């Protein structure tokens, strides 16, 4: 077990190093960060001075070494945009994204699992077809458009929720719903199809032949087996939300999370902050993946550590 954890963590470290290398090389070799960050009318002296403060005059390998040495201590340097430590900005923004993603995914899981199971019990019935149609609609709606429509309707027209920003619990409702709806669509489809498969498995018939109540057959037997692919998708949704969808949703709702910050960093041409964000998000993605592996082992006794 200990060996397995070490192995997975080592693999994770390699992935993070890979991500950092790509980001580092792309930002430095493709295009010139100094001309990106400085105004056009900067004099060559100003440019040289700026290069020196960022350490960009050093050889690439030295820069990389500096970055790595700093990253280990969570010291990524000062943000050019805000003039304070990049990690400080991330430490403020990250919990806000976490809250948003957790709220959205909790809603998605709580809604999608019962709905998906219900649809799977009578495949082809009008209820099933209605639910599948609704899910397809949910997962097809572009998130930025959905967010804007929710703002228009619930924020502007009805005035139930604030249109944007961060603060009371009311602020989280619209962005969380925007983030949750497509996830609900995908999850319902996944729960439904895996449940239809599992409900046809021989062990389900065994359970029925044993005279077990229907709910027990459906939840204890079929759903437990269906929960591995479902858990995989929930993990994927989490990663996608943290490292992707949050950028769109947080921008639409001006939610000061990590996604909003990364867009700001790009707009402000803040290379230091952007680098730090990519590094931290990569670590989160790797950590979630390792967590998923342990979850699988908890669900399925056949998945064993081979050491």
């Amino acid at each position, binding site marked *: 077990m200990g060996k397995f954890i070490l192995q997975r963590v080592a693999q994770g470290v390699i992935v993070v190093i890979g991500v950092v290398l790509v980001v580092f090389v792309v930002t430095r070799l493709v295009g010139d960060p100094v001309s990106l960050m400085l105004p056009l009318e900067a004099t060559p002296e100003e440019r040289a001075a700026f290069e020196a403060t960022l350490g960009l005059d050093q050889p690439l390998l030295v820069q990389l070494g500096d970055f790595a040495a700093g990253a280990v201590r969570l010291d990524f340097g000062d943000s050019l945009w805000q003039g304070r430590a990049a990690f400080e900005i991330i430490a403020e923004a990250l919990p806000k994204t976490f809250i948003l993603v957790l709220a959205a995914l909790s809603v998605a899981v709580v809604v999608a699992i019962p709905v998906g199971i219900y649809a799977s019990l009578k495949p082809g019935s009008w209820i099933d077809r209605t639910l599948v149609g609704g899910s397809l609609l949910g997962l097809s709606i572009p998130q930025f458009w959905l967010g804007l429509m929710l703002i228009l309707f619930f924020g502007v027209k009805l005035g139930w929720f604030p249109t944007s920003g961060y603060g009371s619990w009311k602020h989280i409702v619209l962005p969380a719903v925007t983030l949750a709806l497509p996830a609900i669509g995908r999850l319902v489809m996944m729960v439904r199809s895996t449940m239809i498969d599992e409900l046809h498995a*021989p062990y389900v018939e*065994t359970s029925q032949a044993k005279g077990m109540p229907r709910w027990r057959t459906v939840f204890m037997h079929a759903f437990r087996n269906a929960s591995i692919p479902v858990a995989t998708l929930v993990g994927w949704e989490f990663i996608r939300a943290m490292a992707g969808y949050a950028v769109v949703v947080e921008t639409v709702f001006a939610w000061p999370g990590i996604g909003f910050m990364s867009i700001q960093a790009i707009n402000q041409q803040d290379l230091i902050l952007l680098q730090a964000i990519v590094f931290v998000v990569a670590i989160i993605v790797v950590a979630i993946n390792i967590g998923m592996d342990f979850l699988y082992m908890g669900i399925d006794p*056949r998945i064993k550590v081979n050491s």
Partner: protein
Amino acid sequence: MTEVRKEPYLLEVKDLQVSFYTRRGIIRAVRGVHLKMERGETLGIVGESGSGKSVTARAILGLVDLPGAITGGDILWNGESLLHGKGAKARARKVRGKEMAMVFQNPMTSFNPLYTIGSQIREVLKYHLGMNKKQGTERATELLSLVGMSNPKSRVDQYPHEFSGGMRQRAMIAMALASEPKLLIADEPTTALDVTIQAQILELLDDLQSRLGLTTILITHDLAVVAGVCHRVRVMYAGRFLEKGSAEEIFGKPGHPYTVGLLKSTPRLDELVPRLYSIAGSPPDLRLPVTGCTFLPRCEIGEDSCGVTEPLLTGKKGAREVACYRSFEAESVIEAELEAEWEALARADD
């Protein structure tokens, strides 16, 4: 039979009809099956895949689900209907898994892979006998040793994937016996197993049957299995029984051409044959209406007149019955045919 029975049969199936409603048509899988089970006897139902034997078993247990449905007939348990009348559904629910239990064909997939064998047996004990976890574990261990499993104490906490095929089938039988059922239905219990394991499982079933006084229905396509274990035998084809009788009668003197064909197509060590006989063709499409004998297209002795109306089981009621217009004629015809081939072969050799 003229005598008046004081006691109802343990199980009586009357004119059972089961159909499957598919996109390509209605499949009439079981078309009028009659069955009476005495307490303590073993009945063998023989037939090839698609003959309706498994569907019959599932219908008895109430496991026929959409797109299938029981469309006619009745199933009586101790004289009470499980299909019609007041309280039938509740009765069927009470009987299923408690009074009658089933052993399935594939022990590899019939256990839930995520729970230990013990906990899957405990489910039965908890729901039908109200045992708590401790009692359940104890009883499950006993049951595992009853079916001949060595080291049942550690086995009870193992997962299905830690068992071999034969072990799983033993555990399956233990689980079926957990509720102390009156009737055990075994649907091809040995088909998925190695030949040596097959014999062990059959021996176990036979032994349990006589020790516990179980009533057993054994469903198989393997005649050798039936010959060893069953008192009475039914041969099923295209959703109906074609022949019924005692095991000795049917193996000694098969009456229906289909039974003859099945017996002749089983390889034997004590008989020299020019080739292994096989029944030509395939079973009829049960979506189409039945006109005449369902076996006629494959029959060696069939005549045009066989195709008019479907033959019914006739003969001594309750004993030997054959559904054929030319019963007991096929054996000699097929034997003569094989004999002629044998001679032709011998001549060619000379």
